[in-house]
């Protein structure tokens, strides 16, 4: 079932077009990622879906409701974590939970949520005394208190240490198992690869690629990178192998870039057949990070300074 439908959404700030004719669907019980560089229009898009921002044109429906006009009905069905919200320093964890519970008709038991997040021993603590990770977890608790069907998480793990980030990812997967639909805004590619079922890549207000992680990565037709150490002086033969695009050598480290698995097979066969001793072999298939970098690289190379004024916001 379709939880969210976004159709030709455009958001403008004065002359700036922050979101430019964006359309996508989010289906029930999936984790949908929106990624892209800073200023790509991710947050603006999500804020329109959350009913916090008015669309300049286009339509947004969440469970069939218009988030701007029918926000009161929707706020009981959606949970929201905003990008870097803080809370009052001298408010206690349970007091915030208690307040948020009183705003909804059928709230979840916040004691249970605090327990899932490992925050139950912090119930009486001041929010100011929580660590960055604990504060983010509290934000999620508050987002889940409405017993929502869909949750929006914006820059969930910014500022968290690697351990806390992985805990968050596990949690998101658990939440999906419990039937939630999650929209995740991020500029961390590893995070998106770890949890998202589908992803939309945004750049300068537009969606430039959308689908499963594999579909998106493949759509950019990027190269696999094979690197190894070997005392090999002439790399001309390797350049001629199937699928190989470029070969670079730095001291005894040789980097081969090429397309597809046959390129890897060809390089390995060449090394084997010619009895070339090698070590530290690494094969790095293209990933979302590479897509992201190629995107930003493309912008710099092709459009240079003229890109700076382009619709960011």
């Amino acid at each position, binding site marked *: 079932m379709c939880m969210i439908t976004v159709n030709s959404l455009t958001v403008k700030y004065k002359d700036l077009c922050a979101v430019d004719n964006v359309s996508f669907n989010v289906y029930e019980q999936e984790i949908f990622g929106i990624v892209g560089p800073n200023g790509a229009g991710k947050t603006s898009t999500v804020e329109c879906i959350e009913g916090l921002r008015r669309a300049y044109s286009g339509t947004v429906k969440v469970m069939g409701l218009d988030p701007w006009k029918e926000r009161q009905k929707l706020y009981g069905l959606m949970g929201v974590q905003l990008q870097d919200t803080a809370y009052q320093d001298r408010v206690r964890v349970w007091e915030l939970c208690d307040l948020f519970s009183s*705003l909804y008709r059928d709230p979840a038991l916040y004691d249970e949520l605090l327990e899932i997040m490992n925050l139950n021993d912090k119930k009486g603590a001041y929010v100011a005394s929580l660590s960055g990770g604990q504060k983010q977890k509290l934000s999620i608790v508050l987002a889940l208190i409405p017993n929502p069907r869909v949750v929006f998480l914006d820059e969930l793990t910014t500022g968290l240490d690697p351990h806390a980030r992985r805990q968050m990812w596990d949690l998101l997967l658990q939440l999906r198992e419990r039937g939630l639909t999650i929209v995740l805004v991020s500029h961390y590619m590893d995070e998106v690869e770890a949890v998202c079922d589908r992803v939309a890549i945004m750049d300068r207000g537009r969606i430039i690629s959308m689908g499963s992680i594999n579909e998106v990565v493949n759509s950019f037709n990027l190269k696999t990178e094979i690197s190894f150490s070997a005392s090999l002086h002439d790399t001309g033969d390797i350049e001629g192998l199937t699928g190989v695009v470029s070969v670079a050598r730095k001291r005894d480290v040789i980097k081969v870039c090429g397309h597809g698995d046959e390129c890897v097979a060809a390089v390995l066969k060449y090394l084997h057949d010619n009895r070339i001793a090698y070590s530290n072999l690494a094969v790095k298939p293209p990933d979302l990070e590479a897509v992201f970098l190629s995107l930003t690289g493309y912008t710099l190379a092709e459009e240079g300074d003229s890109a700076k004024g382009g619709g960011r916001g």
Partner: protein
Amino acid sequence: MKSGLIKLAVLEFKLFTRNFLSMFFLLVFPSLMLLLFGGIYGNEPEPIFGGYGTVDVSVPAYAGIIVSVTGLMSLPLAVCEYREKKILKRFQATPLSPAYVIISQVSVNLLMTIAGMLLLFLTGKIVFNMRFMGSVLPVTAVFLLSLLSVFSMGFLIAGLAPSMRAATAIANLVFFPMLFLTGATIPIELMPELMRNIARFFPVTHVVKAMKAVWLGESISSVYSSLLVLGGVMLPCFFLSLRLFRWE
């Protein structure tokens, strides 16, 4: 929803009581000053105060401190903090409008200002057997006008300040002159001519002047010029702060 409003107001009240500086300047400092100066000078009639005692004239003057603490410090800083921390925006994504967050802030500050004034009144009454010559209605009316006028300045500070830090700086810059140069702490009768003329430009001077007058039983019409100043400050401040107001 209704229980949400009550919970919100109760929480804002609790948060206010946890703010040490506000609590101290609102509830402790004025009574402490009264105990100090009342202790030194007693409450015998003094010619410089027109035949009234030090305590008799200090209590209405300290109303100027009390409304400044809530109106110029506590309120604008809270509003700025809530905006900067995106707490107001967070409430936009709940069934409860963030307008209620502002409303409960104002209510809590109003209530606490009145509580501060009552406490000071009781200290004067119990410790020094202070005389209160006014009648309740004009004193209440002048106190409420003073409150609204100073609160409107607070809202203007909140509207003008681009950040919490700026708000703190502006609030301090406004608050301390209002504390010492208006007769709120140091009696205006003790100031030289030049200082008195400067003091006329501070709205809180008129709070002190009007409060003193009605407190000591003079008619409300005797201080109409001060009331006009307070009203004249309030209207443009509220108008401007409404125009400048932003949720984030």
